[in-house]
């Protein structure tokens, strides 16, 4: 299992530099009060997205499944490693973005960036997991071309939804449910957070089992 995740990381490494450039770009573009709140999560999400797509395309182009499945591995492990590697991605993306944000905060105080906080981490992780849960079964089923299309859709939804949502929330900031939601975001209601987490875990598990089923029946 570990060699598989290691493999993902070696392949991902090639895309990280690009992701880094992308996040610096985002930090410049989103340097306004409305978007600023979301810059961290959007940048991290963007990096993860680019890497996931990059690896998927590389594997598709090189027909890597044939080599991977000829190695001493079971198909179960290949699927599980893909899911675990999403987590390593998230961590790498967050660290990168955190560092970039740190540099902006101290070197370009004009842009007024705050440091990364737990909400950023939370939003990023949730959105990456959602993206992965939708796109991985499709990736295993059809390989890269379709994954790309679906990912663009999911990406756009997750990319613009927060901004729209933010605009909406700001406009309705006096409504009681918005207030309670704001309280949630502040991590005050642990029970609700846990429920959210549980839902997330269920989504991942369902996605994993669908992927596994698809992969076990696949011909390379």
């Amino acid at each position, binding site marked *: 299992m570990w060699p598989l995740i290691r493999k993902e990381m*070696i392949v991902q490494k090639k895309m990280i530099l690009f992701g880094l450039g992308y996040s610096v770009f985002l930090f410049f573009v989103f340097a306004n009060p409305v978007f600023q709140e979301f810059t961290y999560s959007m940048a991290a999400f963007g990096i993860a997205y680019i890497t996931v797509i990059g690896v998927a395309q590389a594997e598709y182009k*090189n027909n890597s499944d044939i080599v991977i499945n*000829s190695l*001493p*591995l079971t198909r179960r492990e290949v699927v599980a490693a893909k899911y675990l590697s999403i987590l390593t991605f998230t961590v790498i993306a967050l660290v990168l973005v955190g560092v970039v944000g740190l540099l902006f905060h101290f070197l370009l105080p004009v842009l007024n960036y705050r440091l990364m906080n737990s909400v950023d981490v939370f939003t990023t992780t949730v959105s990456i997991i959602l993206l992965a849960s939708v796109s991985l079964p499709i990736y295993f089923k059809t390989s890269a071309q379709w994954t790309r299309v679906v990912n663009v859709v999911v990406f756009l939804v997750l990319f613009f939804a927060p901004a729209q949502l933010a605009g909406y929330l700001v406009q309705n900031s006096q409504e009681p449910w918005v207030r309670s939601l704001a309280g949630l975001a502040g991590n005050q209601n642990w029970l609700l957070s846990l429920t959210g987490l549980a839902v997330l875990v269920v989504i991942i598990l369902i996605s994993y089992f669908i992927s596994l089923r698809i992969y076990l029946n696949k011909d390379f």
Partner: protein
Amino acid sequence: MDEILKVDGLCRSFGEFQLKDISISLPRGYIMGFIGPNGAGKTTTIKLIMNLINRDRGEVLIFGKDNIKNEKEIKQRIGFVYDENYYYDFLTLKEMKNIIAPFYRDWDEAVYQRYLKIFELPARKKIKDLSRGMKMKFSLALALSHGAELIIMDEPTSGLDPVFRSELLDILRSEIQDDNRGILFSSHITSDLERIADYICFINNGQIVFSQTCYELREKYLLVKGPLELLNETVRQFMLNVKENDFGFEGLSDQPEKIRRLLGNHALYEVPSLDQIVLYTVRRDKCVAFN
């Protein structure tokens, strides 16, 4: 007999194409050449052996163990080389090796480095910048560096020049000095296999035509040449396929004794090459299809 690979009654259909009742047996210590025209089912059979595609029926035993139930354990002891580069072509040889090596319990870095040297492979170059022959050598180096007992090669020589092909055969000869090993080697270039393979397995139209030792093969088939007058119905009966021209005929018989008795010294006899056996057998199928 201790069989390193045993395939029994393997079936798989893909719409039009069907792999029917494939049975192969390779004893430890020997090389099997797997021949047949393109599209005959060589790659499909190899993929079934490697559990890269699912089977409909049948059984594959490698080292005496089921290839699916003991997949991980078995693949530790298999070295594979495929007809194309299925590695990540944007990585360097070194990066790719670093991906592959940790999967193997018995990875031997010294052996790998030795092959790099022998093959003159540039470790820092990207895989996509290698020539076809170099890519093949790289696959081979990876396949031979973890003490594999069974080496499975699918068309390793296709598109390569004769010098490299002969180098490859030399490597295989030295690998098989260890009588604990076995090699399955598919190729449509039969001359590669003619002098090295202990067993020849011939597949056509998804079915095994024969699978036997190279010397049995030489006794089983006979190439007959002679004047057209000799070619009557009885003679034709004993021939698999006959080619005629204005000056005479040439044909392949799978009943050498009968044909020798029938034609005596009026005809010329030769031991057919593998190529000739394949050619005549495949053509016969096509003729039947046309009728």
